[in-house]
């Protein structure tokens, strides 16, 4: 049973009033980017309408208000991931930028030829390519922990690849392509035992479950706002303070310099050292509001609601003859990937769109996962708090329509 009032929640998302090709919008693509509740949209308008100004710059009222709101958002993020200090929270454009920040500012000066960076086979390209680049730059080697037929990282294979050469372990909290939840705490514990840095791609974790970076035991945790009801262009990197303080800046510019302005009394070198230039203020404010909103819903309730939806979707889709689910992870969050017979995912996507249903069709920026399951692409339905079992029923009807057309 779900503790969320889905009907009431739907009314909070203005976009859900839209009709697509004459049909009510059924949005099942939140893993790509979630829709925004009215409170987030209004917070942005309120900021621009009432107190927009640059932050950490002026002493005038608007700047003070904007700075306070920006730093309030940072404190919200800190509490959201159970970090110790606001100084451990760096605002970035999103998960991709966060991982690039760690790979360039932490790893690049520290990796030596022969060192190893361990990733898993189910990573999003954003947790593969930055590491490939830094390996190329330093002579370190990228090592991959494989997944099994169910779409879970094989624990023994992961452990076997950890060793004294392992300097960095970079892994997803939740797979965007399959929905697999990784045993991050256990993997992090093992990684720490060989002295490796643990970097978690939390893009698909934060929207679906409470996150406690201390309990996970990670050194860095990266996530995007736009997959958790906040605007695009904002995200956060949690980093343990002693690591951030030891890192050189990765971009130069205003704000990162100690001597400039006003609010720096509150903050030492991090996070400002990593926030050169005028930041995405509206984004940070929107992220803070989205966090408050999510916390009011209660992430445990969100998790329970979505777990019910995923169980229902998994059962409903696999009951359709000819539909094959891709991956059957032991623990799943957020998304279900599937293929409809021989029909290409893009054809599935186009036909579902005709029914007003938005899903993701493609390789989900996880081509190694597609290769593993020997499919060029999958259709992926992903869930948010505003989805209900009725959305799954419409998806199933849409899939049957696909089968009719391709019969």
């Amino acid at each position, binding site marked *: 049973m779900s503790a969320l009032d889905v009907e009431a929640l739907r009314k909070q998302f203005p976009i859900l009033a839209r009709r697509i*090709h004459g049909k009510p919008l059924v949005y099942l693509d939140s893993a790509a980017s979630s829709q925004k509740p009215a409170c987030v949209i209004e917070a942005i308008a309120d900021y621009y309408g009432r107190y927009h100004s640059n932050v950490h710059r002026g002493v005038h009222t608007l700047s003070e208000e904007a700075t306070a709101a920006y730093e309030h958002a940072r404190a919200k993020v800190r509490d959201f991931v159970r970090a110790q200090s606001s100084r451990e929270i760096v605002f970035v454009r999103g998960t991709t930028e966060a991982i690039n920040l760690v790979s360039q500012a932490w790893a690049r000066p520290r990796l030596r030829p022969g060192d190893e960076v361990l990733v898993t086979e189910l990573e999003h390209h954003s947790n593969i390519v930055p590491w490939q680049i830094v390996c190329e730059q330093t002579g370190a080697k990228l090592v991959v922990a494989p997944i099994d037929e169910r779409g879970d990282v094989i624990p023994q294979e992961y452990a076997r690849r950890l060793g004294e050469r392992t300097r960095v372990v970079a892994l997803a909290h939740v797979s965007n392509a399959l929905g697999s939840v990784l045993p991050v705490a256990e993997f992090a514990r093992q990684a720490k035992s060989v002295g490796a840095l643990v970097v978690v791609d939390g893009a698909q974790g934060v929207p679906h479950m409470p996150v406690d970076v201390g309990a996970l035991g990670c050194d860095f945790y990266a996530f995007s706002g736009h997959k958790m009801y906040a605007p695009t262009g904002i995200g956060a990197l949690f980093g343990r303070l002693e690591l951030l303080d030891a890192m050189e800046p990765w971009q130069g510019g205003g704000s990162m310099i100690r001597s400039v302005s006003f609010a720096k009394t509150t903050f030492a070198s991090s996070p400002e050292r990593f926030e050169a230039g005028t930041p995405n203020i509206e984004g940070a404010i929107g992220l803070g509001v989205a966090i408050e909103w999510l916390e009011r819903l209660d992430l445990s309730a969100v998790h329970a609601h979505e777990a019910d939806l995923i169980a229902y979707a998994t059962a409903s889709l696999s009951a359709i003859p000819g539909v094959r689910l891709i991956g059957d992870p032991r623990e799943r969050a957020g998304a279900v990937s599937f293929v409809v017979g*021989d*029909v*290409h*995912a*893009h*054809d599935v996507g*186009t*036909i579902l769109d*005709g029914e007003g249903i938005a899903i993701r*069709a*493609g*390789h989900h920026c996880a*081509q190694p996962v*597609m290769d593993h399951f020997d499919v*060029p*692409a999958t259709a992926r339905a992903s869930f948010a708090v505003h989805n209900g079992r009725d959305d799954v029923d419409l998806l199933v009807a849409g899939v049957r329509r696909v089968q009719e*057309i*391709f019969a």
Partner: protein
Amino acid sequence: MSDLRELYQEVILDHTKRPRNFGTLEHATHRAQGHNPLCGDQLALFVEVEGDRLRDVSFAGRGCAISTASASLLTEALKGKTTAEAHALFERFHAAVTSSSDQPIDVAGLGKLAVLAGVREFPMRVKCASLAWHTLEAALARRAEPVSTE
């Protein structure tokens, strides 16, 4: 949106399920790879040119219904054509699938390829329909770099 049946016409579904001239061509004089990064579609096009004629054309790879049907229809349409005729057909085809949907579709001279003109209503899918044709152009020009629709 026009009816999906417009996009997924019988001819297209038939070519998707039973692609013509599918497989590699042993005596190919020209070949090229095409790739649509958006959907991961990969195809290879093989052409055997004799004099200025396309004696044989085939394709291999996998993709969505639209790109597979388009490649299949292309091979049928081009066998026996001169390279100049192939280029002209490409131009006409390209103009039809990228034309604005408030203009009448000009399918003159497209023959069976006209069934693909409906993709112009689906901007995201135009690349699917064009992939084989861009790959053909690359093959005939002997460009070594794989064609990408990005």
